[in-house]
C-alpha cells in the first residue's frame, strides 16, 4: 500500500522543533539512539536494534570457483532486503530505488574498503575460494536503516566462523565443526556508517534521524569511518551544501 503522506501541520511542527534544537524523542542533536546487539545460536547470526529499527544479519559461506579476473581472492556478497513487516509501504515491487541505494552503499562501504581480507579466503588458487554471503533483513523501520544495517553486517562478519579446510596437493579436505574448530574470518578494520540528516538547506543537522525526521529532511550525508579515523565511504544525497 502507498505510504501515508505526512500532514502539513506535522511537517511544520517537526521543522519548528528542529529549528529550536529539539527532537521528538528528547535526544540532543548529536545523540544516537540506544544500540542493542544480540546474537543467535549459529555463528554469524545477529540482531541489531537501533532504537526501534531492527535488522537481522546472517552470514553463510560456500566453496565456489573464483571470478576469472580475481583468481586468488574470495567473493563477498551483500544482500539487504526490506521485508514487508518493516513498514506498510514496503511491497515486493515498490522498493527498488531505496533498495538499490542501500545495497550499493553497503557494498561500497564494506567491500571497497577492504575490511575483510579476501586473499585469505582463497583455498586453491583459480579453482576454489570461499564465497561469503551476508544477508540482512530489515525487520522494523524506524529510520536510519543504513547505520543499523552496516553495524549488523560487520558484527555478523566478526561473529562468523567458517569451516576449517586443508589442502594436500590436489586434495581439499573440508572439516566439519565436530572434527576441527571453525576458523574466524580475518577482518582488517570495522567500518561503521554514520548518517547525518540536513534540514533547511544545510542550516540544521541531526545525527541518526528517526523515521519522522527522515520524511522531512532535505538531504542525507552518510560517512563510514573506522577506528583509525579513516574515512571509508562518503555519500551525500538530495541536498546542496557549501
Amino acid at each position: 500500500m502507498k505510504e501515508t503522506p505526512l500532514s502539513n501541520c506535522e511537517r511544520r511542527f517537526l521543522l519548528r522543533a528542529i529549528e529550536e534544537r529539539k527532537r521528538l524523542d528528547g535526544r540532543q542533536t548529536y545523540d544516537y539512539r540506544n544500540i542493542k546487539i544480540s546474537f543467535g545460536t549459529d555463528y554469524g547470526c545477529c540482531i541489531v536494534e537501533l532504537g526501534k529499527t531492527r535488522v537481522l544479519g546472517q552470514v553463510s559461506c560456500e566453496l565456489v570457483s573464483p571470478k576469472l579476473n580475481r583468481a586468488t581472492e574470495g567473493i563477498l556478497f551483500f544482500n539487504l532486503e526490506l521485508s514487508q513487516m518493516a513498514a506498510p509501504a514496503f511491497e515486493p515491487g515498490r522498493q527498488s530505488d531505496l533498495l538499490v541505494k542501500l545495497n550499493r552503499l553497503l557494498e561500497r562501504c564494506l567491500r571497497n574498503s577492504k575490511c575483510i581480507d579476501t586473499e585469505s579466503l582463497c583455498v586453491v588458487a583459480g579453482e576454489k575460494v570461499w564465497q561469503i554471503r551476508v544477508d540482512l533483513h530489515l525487520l522494523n523501520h524506524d529510520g536510519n536503516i543504513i547505520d543499523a544495517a552496516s553495524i549488523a553486517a560487520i558484527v555478523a562478519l566478526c561473529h562468523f566462523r567458517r569451516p576449517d579446510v586443508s589442502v594436500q596437493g590436489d586434495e581439499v579436505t573440508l572439516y566439519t565443526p565436530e572434527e576441527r574448530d571453525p576458523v574466524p574470518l580475518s577482518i582488517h578494520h570495522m567500518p561503521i556508517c554514520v548518517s547525518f540528516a540536513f534540514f533547511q538547506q544545510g542550516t540544521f543537522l541531526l545525527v541518526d534521524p528517526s523515521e519522522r525526521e527522515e520524511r522531512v529532511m532535505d538531504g542525507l550525508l552518510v560517512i563510514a569511518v573506522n577506528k583509525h579515523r579513516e574515512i571509508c565511504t562518503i555519500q551525500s544525497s538530495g541536498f546542496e551544501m557549501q
Partner: protein
Amino acid sequence: MAGLELLSDQGYRVDGRRAGELRKIQARMGVFSQADGSAYIEQGNTKALAVVYGPHEIRGSRSRALPDRALVNCQYSSATFSTGERKRRPHGDRKSCEMGLQLRQTFEAAILTQLHPRSQIDIYVQVLQADGGTYAACVNAATLAVLDAGIPMRDFVCACSAGFVDGTALADLSHVEEAAGGPQLALALLPASGQIALLEMDARLHEDHLERVLEAAARAARDVHTLLDRVVRQHVREASVLLGD
C-alpha cells in the same frame, strides 16, 4: 601490474600528467536532431553521450506526477564494448541503477523544476568508452545536453573525480588509477555558488587528507566549468550565425 607507479618522483602520473591536471576535454552540443537536447563529451579516453527529452507530459502512470515540480528521470547505460572485457548486461544491473539515481539526484538539485509542474524531463546517458571518471563525464555531458534543450538550470553542474596517492591529491582519475584501489572521490559542483550537488567517496582515506582531496576535486570541477562554458558559447555563436544574426 606490479611496480606501476601512479606518481613518479618527478611528479608525473602514468599518462604523463601532473597531479592536478585534467585530461583533454572535447565536447559538442546538438549532436542529434530528434532529441530536444543532446551532447557528446570526451574526457581523455572516456566518451559519453547524453540526450534530453523534455519537459513533456508524464509517461506511464499519472499518479507519479508531482503537483508543484517536474519529475526528472535519468537512465544510465554503458555499452557492452565500453570496458576492456565485454560486459554482458548494458543496463538493468545494480550499478547502472545506482548511477541513474545519482544522476537524478544531481540534476534535481540544479534544474529549476518548479517552472514545469506535472511534467517529466528525461535524461539518457550512454557511455561509449569507459576509461575512468565515468560519473564525471556523464554529468558534464548531461549538463550540456540540458542546456542544449533549453531547460532552465540554476547553474552549470560540473563534476570531476579525485584520488589520493603518496600524500598528493590527484585530479581526474583514469581507469588505471581507479583500478589501483586507492581512495576515489567523485564531486559534482555548481561552480558559481560553490554548492555541492553530490559527493561520493570510496575506499579508505584518513580524515586529515579529506580536505586536500576535496579541494583538488573542487578546483578541477571549476576548470571543467571554464571549458564547458567555452563550448556553450561557441555553440551559441555558431547557431546564431546560421540564423543570420
